């Protein structure tokens, strides 16, 4: 594997074992799914702003999703919400984000020629691809795709009589997620093994860039929690197809009393959220890792408190396994248990606060270079502050009573998890695009993309907090059935306006991305004057990363503007000068 061998079209672009190509495959698939997911949200936002009216956007939907008068069908509204959530959480922000950057950055930044197992890595993508095909095919099933919310709580998701999407659509959803979990486990194990074993000489754990730390911890979270989702889904498959009663008991549906007895839907919720909460950090941590790197490079300063940053990541990861119950305060579980989960949940605010303070300290007395990547990295910090703070409300069980499952929650997690992570992903794409494709992305289009997105995203998600404080539940097909919500119609129109405008700004990114691949200006070897190892590889992609010997690391990744140095960056391969202290 160490030599650059001959490749044909199939082994270069399709069944490729080179981690850089697999990363691009994940990225392109993720981007495709992001477009699908975003269009879905545009469609249901239009329905929320103009309930009971037809819209030109509905032409994108299969015709049987509409009622005869051209209005979106309520079941299909729920289908859109469900698929939007599934696609964004799993396909875009899990596979699209950590699939792309774990594959791309781990070998390059630790100084390895490839992943520990290139073959498993390839399989990981193709399982993901298969999962994508199955999920997309469920959109064309006659009864519609899964419609019980992305959290697929039974009995709603177990009984096709309860909602049409729980028929074939739900079966395909479960098959797809099973494939997805297999893919992400193969990937995750590979990342962990690679980071622990294939670091080049001198790349000690204390010298790892924070991106790699974040990706390592993410992979560990995934390997520990995804199997639980798998077993949770398997039991649901049993209940749906083989007449077992793990989650079902005492049910009458459509006037028919079912045979199921003794099961509990609460068991499902426990299993689901045992994955579901770590999943939030599986999404967020890679973004925070990317942001740490991008902010340090473009502030021309070391990241402040490297050890505290790693410690905070570890603490967040540990706590994420013992907070899942805060999704279930209102299930009727023992109030004492609620107290425990409130305690552990609010503790997460401490490492989160440390991270924010460290980012601010990094920006203090910096020499900030505003590349598009830097703008998005700052967007992540801003969203992390704004969205993280409302977590203090939601994590408090007493306050959760009245905001649970309202738009307050929707606003909270879209900002803290959605925006933070997607901004981190954009930052990563803009930052490493020159390494991926050997070309530069257009800077000015990047600026327009950022400001359009930043303004529209806050315009969409900030007002949602007010909807929630007015008591408006999420996943309502229309808010017009209750007089008490009629006063909110203006807010809904504002949100929809910003959502559509924000969607249009994303086309600028797509255009910039594909235009730059083919027509962009040529990149130099180290365009951002960065310290990390990936910028010591040749501009042209080769299998094996470094043409000759592997680089030897002698210092940490953050020697920016170090006093005594000629330039404001020092590559990690540069030996320490005589008498120079390591940071």
């Amino acid at each position: 594997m160490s030599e650059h061998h001959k490749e044909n079209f199939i082994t270069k672009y399709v069944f490729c074992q080179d981690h850089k190509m697999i990363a691009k495959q994940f990225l392109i698939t993720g981007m495709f799914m992001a477009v699908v997911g975003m269009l879905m949200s545009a469609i249901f936002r239009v329905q929320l702003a103009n309930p009971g009216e037809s819209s030109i956007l509905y032409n994108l939907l299969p015709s049987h999703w509409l009622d005869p008068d051209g209005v979106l069908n309520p079941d299909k509204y729920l289908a859109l919400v469900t698929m939007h959530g599934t696609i964004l959480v799993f396909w875009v922000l899990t596979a699209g984000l950590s699939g792309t950057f774990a594959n791309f950055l781990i070998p390059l930044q630790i100084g390895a020629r490839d992943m520990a197992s290139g073959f498993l890595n390839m399989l990981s993508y193709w399982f993901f691809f298969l999962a994508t095909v199955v999920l997309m095919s469920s959109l064309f099933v006659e009864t519609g795709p899964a419609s019980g919310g992305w959290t697929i709580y039974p009995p709603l998701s177990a009984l096709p009589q309860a909602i049409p999407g729980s028929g074939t659509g739900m079966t395909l959803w479960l098959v797809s997620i099973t494939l997805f979990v297999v893919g992400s486990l193969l990937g995750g194990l590979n990342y962990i093994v690679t980071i622990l074993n294939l670091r080049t000489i001198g790349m000690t754990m204390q010298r790892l860039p924070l991106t790699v730390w974040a990706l390592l911890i993410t992979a560990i979270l995934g390997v520990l929690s995804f199997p639980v989702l798998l077993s949770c889904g398997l039991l649901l498959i049993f209940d749906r197809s083989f007449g077992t009663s793990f989650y079902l008991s005492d049910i009458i549906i459509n006037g028919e009393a079912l045979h199921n007895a003794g099961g509990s839907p609460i068991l499902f919720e426990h299993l689901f959220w045992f994955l579901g909460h770590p999943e939030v950090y599986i999404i967020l941590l890679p973004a925070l890792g990317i942001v740490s790197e991008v902010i340090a490079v473009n502030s021309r300063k070391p990241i402040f408190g490297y050890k505290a940053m790693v410690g905070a990541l570890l603490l967040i990861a540990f706590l994420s396994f013992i907070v899942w119950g805060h999704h279930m305060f209102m299930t009727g579980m023992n109030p004492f248990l609620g107290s425990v989960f409130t305690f552990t949940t609010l503790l997460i605010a401490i490492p989160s606060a440390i991270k924010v303070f460290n980012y601010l300290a990094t920006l203090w007395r910096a020499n900030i270079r505003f590349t598009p990547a830097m703008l998005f990295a700052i967007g992540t910090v801003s969203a992390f502050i704004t969205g993280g703070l409302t977590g203090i409300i939601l994590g408090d069980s007493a306050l959760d009573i009245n905001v649970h499952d309202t738009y307050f929650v929707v606003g909270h997690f879209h900002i803290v998890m959605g925006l933070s992570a997607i901004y981190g992903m954009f930052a990563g794409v803009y930052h490493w695009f020159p390494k991926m494709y050997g070309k530069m992305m257009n800077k000015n289009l990047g600026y327009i993309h950022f400001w359009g997105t930043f303004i529209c995203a806050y315009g969409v998600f900030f007002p949602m907090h007010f909807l929630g404080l007015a008591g408006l539940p999420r996943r309502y097909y229309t808010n017009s059935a209750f007089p008490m919500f009629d006063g909110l119609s203006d807010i809904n129109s504002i949100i929809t306006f910003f959502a559509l405008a924000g969607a249009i700004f994303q086309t600028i990114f797509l255009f910039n991305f594909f235009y730059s691949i083919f027509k962009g200006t040529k990149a130099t070897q180290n365009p951002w004057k960065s310290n990390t190892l990936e910028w010591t590889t040749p501009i042209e992609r080769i299998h094996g990363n470094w043409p000759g010997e592997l680089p030897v690391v002698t210092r940490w990744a953050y020697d920016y503007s170090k006093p005594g140095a000629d330039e404001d960056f020092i590559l990690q391969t540069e030996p320490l000068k005589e008498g120079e202290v390591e940071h």
Partner: protein
Amino acid sequence: MTNILIAIVVLLLIATLVQILRVSELLSEIKNKDVNEVTDEDNNTQGVLFLIVGFGFLIFVIWQMVAWDHLLLPPASSVHGIQIDFLMKMSMGLILIVFFVLSPILFYFLYKYRGKKSNKAYFFSHNNKLEVIWTVVPTIILTVFIVFGLKTWDNAMNVEVSESTTTIEVYAEQFRWTARYAGQDRLLGKTDFRFVEPKFNPLGLVNNEYLKIAIKDKQVDYDTLSRNPLKKDDYGRTNQEKMDVLSGHIKQLPSILNEVSTDVLAQSSDDIITREVHLVINEPVLLKFRSQDVIHSAFLPHFRVQMNCVPGMTTQFGFTPTKTTEEMRKDPKVIKQMNEINRIRLAKGKSEEEFEYILLCNKICGSAHYNMQMKFVVETQEEYDFWYASQKNLKNKLLTQN
């Protein structure tokens, strides 16, 4: 046709954009400049933009808080709700202070430390003292809030049930709520889902009368299905499978009844089933929740009450209402809110509405999830007694049916 036109317009726009980009890149090539290099000028523009847009965002937040304040829920109408509102005010105060400190710092730093080619950043990699301070201070503040929150949670969830507590069952099904009062004995009669018969016994109360009705109902279904045992329904289940379940339930029904002592059987006879819930002001009430089919969530936003309704188990929430519906209608904040609502309703050609306490479903439960509601009324003891007397209890209902 419109679709094709839109597609053409989009394509033309993209083509224009490509050309503009090409031109700008060619121009900078002529000037021997790299179009994608970040210049000092760029840093200036972006730094200033962060200052303007950042503070614009903060102003937008303040504007929302002022402009939409009258649309938010009015102050709580329950004893524990008032405590929750107080905790909410404290927590909101805390996070708003932190938000309005950290965000301006962020935006100001971006402006202040915008880069210049000639500048060099200050090498500052860690400072233990600083880091200890900003770990310990949030920890102390959070500890206070955790303790405060847990106390409020404890007060809200641990209801003391006394002899005088009224118990009301709230029963959820797709897509409707039903309520049941315990009657004179203050005890809710036993239920079993196998006893449910949609017309006479929608909640599945267990007693002798209903046994006959349930068996008859299931027998009729069985007979209909048995005409064509191999027929499959839309979900792939054969009539034979359904008949097996039915015959099983028919066999089980009498034994369910036999397990129940006569005392307990009598408890259901004075139960009252209603389609709206009336409560007495300042009287504690215990709501018991059940579900027939999928998970629902009973949400009473004005009382700060929420609890999931889960098939196969009973959940509960106790609270004490503190304002009657009439009092709420005279509350200045509610009047302001209702005026706004009615202004919008009239503009949309809908009727004017008065304030009502409403129970909503807050857990996705199917196609009509968005419209699953039941009215709650809080009133004085006299008004309540008058209403209560007009409701038929089970015994009377059965008598009239027979």
